[in-house]
């Protein structure tokens, strides 16, 4: 079967890969670019563990085909910290113990960053509904929501 050549931008870097038309963006990120931060928890867009942004829009990368990334800007968890400085969300997640096993954490962080970029002052309810597409089985979400709201408050103070 003929493969497709794709050129795209991931976390600011130009990358190229060959993919089968049936392979998802998640497959390509993980298996071809070795960016394994995004996880496959379901493959059906229900769990959000594979969350990335595509031209600034939050998507489940398991529902995007690898070929659709052509010419797009992709941001993943691997691009979230600036050098050795963690994004405030990353720092707050550690401080608030907002992760247990940590497998959902990359997706939750990418989704939470997208939330705060859209809405710097979310209510608890808004944060809960925004993150409703990111399943966490360990924490009961309590500490995740606290970490997100605390980060939002810190970012508002800083700006």
């Amino acid at each position: 079967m003929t493969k497709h050549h794709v050129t795209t931008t991931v976390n600011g870097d130009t990358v190229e890969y060959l993919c089968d038309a049936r392979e998802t963006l998640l497959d390509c990120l993980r298996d071809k670019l070795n960016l394994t931060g995004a996880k496959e928890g379901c493959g059906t867009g229900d769990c959000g563990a594979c969350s990335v942004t595509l031209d600034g829009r939050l998507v489940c990368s398991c529902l995007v085909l690898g070929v659709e990334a052509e010419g797009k800007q992709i941001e993943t968890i691997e691009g979230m910290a600036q050098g050795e400085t963690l994004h405030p969300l990353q720092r707050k997640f550690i401080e608030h113990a907002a992760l247990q096993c940590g497998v959902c954490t990359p997706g939750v962080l990418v989704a939470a960053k997208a939330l705060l970029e859209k809405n710097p002052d979310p209510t608890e309810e808004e944060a809960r509904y925004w993150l409703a597409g990111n399943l966490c089985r360990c924490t009961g979400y309590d500490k995740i929501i606290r970490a997100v709201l605390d980060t939002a408050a810190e970012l508002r103070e800083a700006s």
Partner: protein
Amino acid sequence: MALDDRKSHFTFVGTRPNRPDGLDKVTGRARFGADVTAPGMLFGAILRSPHAHARIVRIDTSKAEAHRDVKAVVTRADFADVPFKPGLEGEFWNVLENVMAGEKALYDGHAVAAVAASSALAARDALKLIEVEYEVLPHVTDVDKAMAPDAPVIREGAADYSVPEGMHPNVVRYHESGHGDVEAGFAEADLVIEDHFVTEATHQGYIEPHACLASLGADGKGELWCCTQGHWIVQKTCAALLGIETAQLRVTASEIGGGFGGKTTVFIEPVALALSRKANRPVKIVMSRSEVLRATGPTASASMDVKIGMKKDGTITAAQGVFRLQGGAFPGAPGDMTAMCAFAPYNLTNVRQVGYDVMSNRPKQAAYRAPGAPMGAFAVESVIDELCKKLGLDPVEVRLKNAVREGTKASYGPTYDRIGLVETLEAAKAHPHYSAPLKPGQGRGVACGFWFNHGGETSVSLALSEDGSAQLMVGTPDIGGSRASMALMAAEVLGIPYENIRVTIADTATLGYNDVSHGSRVTYASGLATIKAAQHAVEKLCERAAAKWGIPVDAVKWENGCAVPSGPNAGDFDPLPLAEITADMGRTGGPISGHFEATPEGAGVSFGTHIVDAEVDPETGKTSITRYTVIQDAGKAIHPAYVEGQFQGGAAQGIGWALNEEYIYGEDGRLQNPVFLDYRIPVASDLPMIDTVIVEVPNPGHPFGVRGVGETGIVPPLAAIANAVSNAAGVRMRQLPMSPPRILAALKGNG
């Protein structure tokens, strides 16, 4: 074990430092099961039965084998050819049969063949080339139907000694225990309520599907990377199933994306090893979500009858329960645990409990957080709530009146040691939640829960570095922040900063045997082992100081990270810090390490009390949890943030079990909801904040007083939520999950 080293004042324990694996996990660099590759790696895929019960007449793999991308195909014949170690029987045989079907496919999703190919897509495509001829057999998936006289027999001869004569062959184990005379007790009661309760099977729902990377050569030497709660049991089981020496298989546990009991056994690992041996190349297998739901180990479903008698003053006079649990096509449903835990919170003169382990055409159940206990608590605590309501009594007062304490005879027999149930109930009574006003349409529920906790085989090794830092090797995969608690306990003993201790989950080649991370044992047992290993190192540090000072070793004690003379008679020496001793250790006797290998036997049982407010929409039947408080005895919270996390996680899983989650089998015996869209676990917008109260009644069996905390948190929620919903809806809910259609039906039935 002498526990004269009991501690009650702490420097590090009880603080909330950042977890050591935090950075890796927030940056995406932590390596989970599916995140590794190997040179020359192939991808495996597994063909699964579409039938709930079928004889496998013929499997033709020739077309798949002829495919140019396919490098190996295995069926059960590839396992059967293996010269098994003598004694592959009992549970090992069950696991093999579950990992790859033999003569019959026993449930929808049962593995029947597997391929390894050069790409994941090629492997998936190649499965379609395997031809399997099935003779479909009658099936049964419901526990009560599986016990009925006309039920299809899943396997003759699976029952053990315990099953009374005359029972259906699908009943494979029977438990009966208790004391006193329940009939006499019921006669003394002012009110007796007997009721029937049903719970459906649920899945642990860990977000990371099972994944492994296996490499095995014809020389019998292998390497296995996998996500598991216990890599030594993986090593032992895979070695047995593949007929190799245990020590020749090195197993490394990846970071684990949740387990909750579901990753305490093997599913894909022996298959990947068999494929690797046949292809002579590394093979990676990653399950899809629907494979996880169809073919790993969900919990048992239950059918239960509970009868309790109470006096007008709230005294329970007798209690009796019959608990029937269906655990899939193999023995193992924890009916005995359900029976032993169900009445454990109460001081009962007359109690009788019966548990059944029943087979059906479903996947082999695995442990799920306090396996067996939540269902029993649901039935028992519901009846107690109903008795309180009918007698006009306060549910917390009634529980306090009947609560077990130190010296009470447990419903399962022995006398309790120091326990903390009363303390959790007192905390519930005093909590503002319990007295907060309810809005119209809301109801409040309370429930207690009990779990045994476990110790288990444990090995820990601690090595000091020249610069005074320490590396700690433990063998229990970190499923909830345990590396942080291990480092805190080691810091407490060594007297060096938490940050100076690096905790590693060692592979099977690096450390002695360790039991699985289950039974809420890690902070208890690996923690105890860490403390002992650190103390072992401290003894050696004191020896080096004594030698340097030229005084007897018993004249040296360890204080705040330094060797100091034990008293004025020992001599006048400045405190000698750990780093000064280790700096010279190569020349004063060699490397300084500490070890511990034993099976700690003092886990200490655990109790919790939950308070829940629920609101039921009478139009739609939808339930919202509006407030939730978890109160549980932790013995001693080493890292309180992660103890709270365990409480909150248990409650959230309990909310899912109570309200949404269930395995739904069709008439055809196939699982109807094998995706997260249809098997709906709680999402952030379903839940409120979950308040926690950590009660600390020290466990006499641990030097710092630790009790396991992981499992007890899922025992009360089913019952507490059912009580809240029943109080809100005005009708007793006897079947879980309390999904909107069931609530609407109950409201309608109630007029």
